[in-house]
């Protein structure tokens, strides 16, 4: 077997792995990266990017359908149609451009990419059977695990055929008449809403009593209302038992001990993601685990010296920008710098309709942490820009310490609030107080004015409410 040596070996070319490799390369660290599937990982190929592309197309189609029914703006169209195969081709074009771009960035940074599945031998040795060429043994000084996560399967409904994972839902073979979505977390809802907008009858089954159960209720209320208005049928407090082609999904209402069936041509199972830790020899390292994921410290170090781990394989929050930031952090440490992964806040965005953004602590979390805090919400119904965008649902909420007004968290729900995450994150990292945001001039007319007004409202000085 051919042997090579490198300083840093990265397993996994998702946002965690590729960013770590690029940054290490920039800093002159000899770096190799092994990727078995496609550069860009879940995020670029079957996650963040293709889902947002599909959502964008679905929104455009929904607008067209609304206009066909006559719009308050005075616009009218006839006969809206969507060729979903073309939509998928468009989406694939974006994925190809982005994954090609990642390859070019890695090359530019001097990273050697090996295409194939890595098998861990020990903390300094990995073997790969590349898709092309002879098997390779790579010896490294530092090993970085960035193997990501995979969708959780239900034993009663394994993926395949009519049972879709999120990956299948992003490259549909057809638009089903009826889709059942199992799981009302962000992935299930993002895709469920998109399919509804594409004209599909969508039913969501969720075991918890609420949608987006990891978010607080006030925040998810506008999403719930929008779901109902869109005609999505919800079965909360229900679990799925199985599926057959004739009757569809077998569902049990847990509280009422009632069983019923939901007919559907396709079922999207979106009940979570599991860190990818098995099947490639990782067990042999006997790393400390934290539940299902690899345990890491604030330096992204595992329990074995010079073995690092980042991204989804290290558990929640499983988000691309966390993986990237961890990747940068590890690369700089391997280049000899003193770094820690200790952000003040990691924003989380649901690209539902309305969108949801959470940065830092919610009022409930702050109180649970024993902090004396104030919070205030400013509704988009009182924001001029929102009116001109036909987007008056939702609000911006701020949470701050009562004593010194230090901002502890931001939450927002509404159309287009994802782009407010930049201001939220920056204000948290800068240690801003309510006065800082409240007395910053925000451009008129923008949704961002609601950010300023929320801060002013918490100070008892709101102007527009």
């Amino acid at each position, binding site marked *: 077997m051919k042997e090579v040596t490198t300083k840093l070996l990265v397993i996994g070319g998702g946002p965690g792995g590729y960013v770590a490799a690029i940054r290490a390369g920039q800093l002159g660290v000899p770096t190799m990266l092994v990727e078995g599937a496609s550069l860009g990982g879940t995020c670029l190929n079957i996650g963040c990017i293709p889902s947002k592309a599909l959502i964008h197309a679905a929104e455009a189609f929904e607008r067209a359908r609304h206009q066909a029914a006559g719009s308050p703006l005075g616009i009218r169209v006839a006969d809206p149609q969507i060729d979903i195969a073309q939509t998928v081709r468009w989406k694939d074009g974006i994925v190809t451009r982005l994954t090609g771009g990642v390859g070019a960035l890695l090359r530019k940074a001097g990273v050697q990419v090996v295409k194939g599945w890595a098998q861990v031998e020990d903390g300094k040795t990995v073997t790969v059977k590349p898709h092309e060429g002879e098997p390779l043994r790579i010896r490294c000084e530092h090993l970085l695990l960035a193997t990501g996560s995979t969708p959780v399967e239900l034993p009663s409904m394994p993926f395949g055929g009519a049972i879709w994972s999120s990956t299948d839902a992003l490259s549909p073979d057809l638009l089903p008449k009826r889709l059942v979505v199992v799981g009302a977390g962000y992935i299930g809802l993002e895709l469920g809403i998109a399919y509804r907008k594409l004209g599909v009858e969508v039913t969501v089954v969720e075991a918890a009593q609420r949608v987006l159960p990891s978010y607080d209720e006030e925040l998810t209320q506008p999403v719930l209302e929008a779901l109902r208005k869109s005609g999505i049928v919800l079965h909360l407090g229900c679990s799925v038992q199985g599926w057959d082609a004739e009757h569809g999904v077998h569902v049990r209402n847990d509280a009422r001990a009632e069983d019923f069936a939901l007919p559907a041509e396709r079922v999207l199972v979106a009940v979570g993601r599991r860190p990818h830790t098995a099947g490639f020899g990782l067990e042999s390292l006997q790393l400390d685990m934290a539940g299902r994921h690899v345990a890491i410290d604030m330096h992204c170090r595992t329990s074995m010296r010079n073995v690092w781990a980042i991204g989804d394989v290290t558990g929640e929050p499983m988000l691309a920008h966390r993986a990237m930031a961890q990747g940068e952090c590890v690369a700089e440490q391997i280049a000899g710098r003193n770094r820690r992964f200790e952000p003040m806040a990691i924003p989380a965005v649901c690209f539902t309709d309305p969108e949801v953004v959470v940065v830092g602590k919610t009022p409930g979390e702050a109180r649970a942490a024993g902090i004396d805090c104030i919070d205030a919400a400013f509704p988009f119904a009182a924001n001029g820009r929102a009116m001109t965008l036909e987007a008056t649902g939702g609000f911006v909420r701020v949470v701050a310490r009562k004593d*010194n*007004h230090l901002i502890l968290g931001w939450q927002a729900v509404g159309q287009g609030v994802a782009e407010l995450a930049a201001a939220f994150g920056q204000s948290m990292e*800068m240690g*801003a*107080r*309510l*006065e*800082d945001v*409240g*007395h*910053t001039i925000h451009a008129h007319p923008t949704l961002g004015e609601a950010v300023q007004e929320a801060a002013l409202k918490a100070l008892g000085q709101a102007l527009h409410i």
Partner: protein
Amino acid sequence: LRKEGERPLASPSVRRRALDLGLDLRLVHGSGPAGRIAHHDLDAFAAGGGQAQAAGG
């Protein structure tokens, strides 16, 4: 301290507190990055009776 005529670097909440306390930020030493004046710099200055610290202090 900062160059003649250069505007003191301080966030809106620090600027407003200085106005409320009647303190001149141009006299306050900024201990933060790029000479940014933090709330604790203002507190220290106010505790010192609002007197300018010695140059370089």
